[in-house]
């Protein structure tokens, strides 16, 4: 029973069988539980008073529990032995009082912590959420969303539970344990030594347990996060899974993952069982030895029977504080790994912002100079996705951006509001480098309509006014009119209708029009539209284009376009190819001079009478 703790090799294996790309962090690193938990201090500080009160209440409750037998003894030895009922009242009154005090302490211990811990949990979760919102998009690309969710729920819970109960008892029980040991030494030091002897292996083994268990606990938490990711994807991609009847494949995938989690949980239980066995067994064996030696000493009159009884009662009373160590440690460990996971996110550097907003310069439009970009995880040796973009969108001009699928158009537009950071070169708005602007200000200046229109759980009004919080009803109405979102009026509550995840699920075309309205509301000085009309039918598209033209007249805009109809919104067109701007000109000029553009706009259609200009491989770059 003593030596069956899992070996290090087993742990190494366990780390190998969980190659975990989505967690993005090598999980094997061992940290001390205490050091991890100490990081909770900034949050726990707020409740330190309450924690102290709770621990005091727990200690006092324990003391009053211990005092009860003493009072009982008095009653039995005194009034009862004398059959003196009248003298019975004071000690019985005391007993009643003790009982009431004890229950009040039990109540207090919990009550003082309930709301503060709730607030602490909320504060940590709010910080996590706020942090995640401000971390760059590239961070979110790296991490499965389920991993974040499990940090915000399961992990938070583990930390709160630890502070609510095990922490207090870890303290109280340690104090009790120390007091008990002192007491035992004063009673009979030789026996105390025997009882203390197993403490040495106990300490060694618990340390070992701790480091092993924290690895497994961490693994389980990560796997829990991965499982959450699978669940999330299976729900978000439900249409595809249904369309292909692939729910079984997904279920198989889920089964594998959940089996993996089950194995880890069982390994956790195995480690815990080992620890328990040691923690329960060793002291008992020592106690047995103490009993034998003690009895021998008593028999040889080196010890009084009363002392032995007292000693053994003390030792038995310490059983609970020692045994409780098993699960207290397990709690502490899980809380520590949860803390690690929490701070992994919190420690991510937040992108820095220049403190004060510089005013923009004279109208100059958008200027890309030598802008380069590569994704952080792009393998070495591959060319940069954007390899020196030079482009000037003049003030008030609408520039269409055209390029083959995957040429980096969307990426280029994402650099403007700094959703991604350019890895080289600079981008200026009216002469001001965008890195000199606080993000908040920059994103106020640049409004974006994404290729994939995302609506949030809010009313139509809120969703549209996200683009310009200060805008009034008239501006809202005009933005909706520009986007031809007349359907809004027919919604159950008009612009006050809830849409998004927790509201009406609108069609792709309807979402796209609302996203467009969101971009144009409040007439932003710079506008980025990423293929804004893709989901619209020809008829609506024509109407939107007509209305949009007016809006574009008064802003500087970059419009990603896939089709001639969208290109016609622009004054000039830039062709993106091989990471560079290949050509800039009006639609007509480019049609005439740029074969690549001609191909992008018309393919090999009959409009080019000579037939296909390029061999088939060239169609998609």
């Amino acid at each position, binding site marked *: 029973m003593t030596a069956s703790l899992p070996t290090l090799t087993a742990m190494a294996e366990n780390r190998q069988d969980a190659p975990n790309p989505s967690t993005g962090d090598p999980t094997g690193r061992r940290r001390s539980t205490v050091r991890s938990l100490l990081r909770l201090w900034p949050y726990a500080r707020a409740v330190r008073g309450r924690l102290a009160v709770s621990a005091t209440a727990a200690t006092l409750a324990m003391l009053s529990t211990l005092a009860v037998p003493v009072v*009982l003894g008095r009653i039995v030895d005194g*009034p*009862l032995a004398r059959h003196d*009922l009248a003298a019975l009242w004071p000690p019985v009154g005391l*007993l*009643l009082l003790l*009982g*009431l005090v004890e229950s009040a302490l*039990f*109540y207090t211990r*919990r*009550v003082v912590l309930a*709301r503060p811990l709730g607030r602490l949990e909320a504060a940590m979760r709010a910080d996590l*959420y706020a942090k*995640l*919102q401000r971390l760059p*998009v590239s961070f979110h690309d*790296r991490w499965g969303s389920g991993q974040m969710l499990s940090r915000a*729920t399961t992990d938070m819970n583990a930390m709160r539970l630890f502070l609510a109960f095990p922490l207090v008892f870890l303290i109280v029980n340690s104090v009790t344990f120390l007091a008990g040991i002192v007491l035992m030494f004063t009673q009979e030091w030789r026996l105390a030594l025997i009882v203390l002897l197993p403490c040495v292996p106990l300490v060694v083994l618990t340390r070992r347990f701790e480091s092993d268990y924290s690895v497994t606990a961490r693994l389980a938490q990560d796997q829990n996060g991965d499982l*959450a990711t699978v669940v999330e*994807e299976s*729900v978000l991609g*439900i249409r*595809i899974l*249904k*369309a*292909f*009847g*692939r*729910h079984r494949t997904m279920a198989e995938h889920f089964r594998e993952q959940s089996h993996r989690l*089950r194995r880890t*949980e069982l390994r956790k*239980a195995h480690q815990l*069982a*080992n620890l328990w*066995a040691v*923690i*329960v*067994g060793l002291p*008992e064996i020592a106690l047995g030895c103490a009993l034998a030696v003690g009895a021998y000493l008593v*028999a040889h009159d080196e010890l009084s029977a009363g002392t032995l009884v007292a000693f053994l009662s003390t030792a038995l009373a310490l059983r609970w504080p020692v045994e409780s160590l098993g699960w207290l440690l397990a709690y502490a460990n899980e809380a520590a790994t949860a803390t690690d996971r929490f701070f992994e996110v919190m420690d991510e550097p937040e992108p820095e912002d220049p403190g004060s907003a510089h005013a923009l310069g004279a109208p100059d439009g958008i200027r890309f100079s030598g802008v380069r970009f590569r994704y952080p995880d792009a*393998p070495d040796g591959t060319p940069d996705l954007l390899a020196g973009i030079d482009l000037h969108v003049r003030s008030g001009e609408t520039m269409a951006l055209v390029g083959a699928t995957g040429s980096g158009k969307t990426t280029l537009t994402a650099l403007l509001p700094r*959703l991604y950071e350019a890895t080289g070169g600079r981008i200026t708005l009216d002469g001001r480098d965008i890195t000199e602007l606080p993000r908040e200000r920059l994103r106020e200046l640049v409004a974006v309509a*994404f290729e994939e229109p*995302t609506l949030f*759980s809010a009313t139509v009004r809120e969703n549209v006014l996200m683009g310009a919080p200060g805008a009034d009803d008239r501006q809202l109405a005009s933005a909706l009119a520009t986007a031809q979102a*007349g359907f809004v009026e027919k919604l159950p509550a008009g612009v006050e209708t809830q849409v998004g*995840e927790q509201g009406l699920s609108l069609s792709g075309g309807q979402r796209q029009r609302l996203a467009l309205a969101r971009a144009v509301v409040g007439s932003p000085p710079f506008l980025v539209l990423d*293929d804004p009309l893709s*989901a*619209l*039918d*020809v*008829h609506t598209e024509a*109407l939107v284009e007509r209305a949009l033209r007016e809006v574009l007249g008064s802003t500087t805009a970059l419009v990603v376009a896939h089709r001639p109809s969208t290109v016609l919104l622009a004054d000039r067109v830039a062709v993106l190819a091989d990471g560079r701007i290949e050509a800039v000109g009006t639609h007509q000029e480019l049609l005439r001079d740029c074969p690549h553009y001609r*191909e*992008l706009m018309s393919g090999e*259609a009959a409009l080019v009478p000579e037939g296909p200009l390029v061999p088939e491989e060239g*169609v*998609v770059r």
Partner: protein
Amino acid sequence: MTTTAEPAESVEEELPPPPADDEDIPVPPGAPRALLRSLLGPHRARIAVAMVVILVQQAALQSGPLLVAVAMDRGIPALRAHDSGPLVAVVAGYLFCALLSPLLQWAFIKISARVNQDVLLELRGRIFRHAQRLSLDFHERYTSGRIISRATSDIDALRELLSEGLQELLTVFLSVCYISVLLVVLDWRLGLASLVCFLPLALVAHSFRTRSRRVYRRSRTAAASMIVRFTETMNGIRPVQAFRREKANDAAFAVVNLRSSGANAEGFLELARYVGLSRATANVWTTGILLLGAYLVTEDSLELGVLTAFVLYLRRLFDPIDQLAMFLNSYQAAAAALEKIAGLLAHEPTVAEPAEPRELPPPPRAEASGRVTLKGREVSFERTRFAYRTGKEVLPPFDLLIPAGQTVAVVGATGAGKSTLAKLLARFYDPTDGRIRLDGVDLRDLTTPELRRAVVMVTQESFLFSGTVAENIAIGRPGATRAEIEQAARDIGAYEFVAALPDGFDTDVRKRGGRISAGQRQLVAFARALLADPAVLILDEATSSLDVPGEQAVQRAMRTVLAGRTAVIIAHRLSTVEIADRVLVMDRGRIVEDGSPQRLIDGSGRFATLHRAWRDSLV
């Protein structure tokens, strides 16, 4: 193109069904209990073994003090008389118990962990499979975040109960039984009087349960709405940042976050009240028993020693109140979670599996008389009508026959009912009246695998699952070889861009493929559909994000791919029409024009107008 311009107001848009007014679906009475039974049932034997193990373990543990007493009373006097036998025997007995008890504890943890984990595994699997089985209309109402919270945070609540609660309950139960018997044996009058205390204690526990059930229901709901908000933000991080939603979101999240943690605190407070109150009850009662005992002692009908022992044991009888509270607490949380889960599991998909499935007739193989093998199947809509649950009619009754192998393009304004038609054919919904047959077999009589082998739909949403590009394509046909996957990509014109990705087909698309453009994702979706090799292919706006060359590559591929297959293509871009054998024009749920593309183009109907507008929109 201006010729077609009408006022926007006249466009009758298709409005989605309203979301569920109540966020919770009703839970049939008894469902949570039945669910628990069905989960624990298969583990009956193991649970029994675990109970026996813990029973013996408790006995071994409790025998400690008893053996000490024997050592004092018998062992020491015997040793004084130079007989070490009794003491040796007692010490041996003690050591035996000292070894047995941890061993049994070890065994108990192992056995119960296995039961717990198997139960959780089963439940997770059930939730997952059920969520997948539920129809789309349900998913559109229930929101993904809530399903996610069922499978994550609700499971967590159960996990807590199973891993910590059950052992506590067992030991509490055992020690209460043990001490109760002991008390009655010691003195039956006092014993019975003591046991009466369980009445007020039960009352306190009952009121705690009722109150905390409410609190925990609220807590589960609050946790779910917190999760909904959280996932929504993380999944839409780009617009969140671009539109500076951070602060507004912080505020909105604070509301649900505080509600959730507030409900948790509320539960904790209920627990504190329960513990305090029941402790007080027990302590007052103990004092009362002491008084009664004292009276009996003065009456000489009770020995003093018995009273002492009695009162000491009485305290131990009530000791487990604290543990019981912990158990009740996790039990309430778990019960609330189980209720939510049971509700989800009890919800039957509106698109149900057939009770008596039929099979499709064998595909007309080897009819390779011409160059083309006929792979398609005949589709017929018969008096098909579709209305939302609210009664709003989307498609009035109609008949439509699509012969095997025909490619049909469906055009019409947004909201004309094109997508609904496609979804009915893909059996995402069932028609309200009438039916749809595939080679004469009602869709409702087909099992899901059979149906999906025959009918595949590519939608405009091109969601990518985490995993490699190859895996994403292979969703079309899980058993496909790498060569087949690459061929499908090549056929649709997606090969080049995939090959150019960092790891080619093995590139991990990561979280929802944020780095792969919408157009590329649509190509992947197409490749997926090609690989599936269905008899009937439905394309719903599947080319909306492609650029012109991309679309043309797809069209080219389609010409070969669709040959012999039945296909229904919905597109805003009329370029699709060029590969269609037949065009349907829909308006407000009705098919208003039907004919070959050439005939319709040459005519003077809506399609001719639309087509002209579209030609104008090209270069």
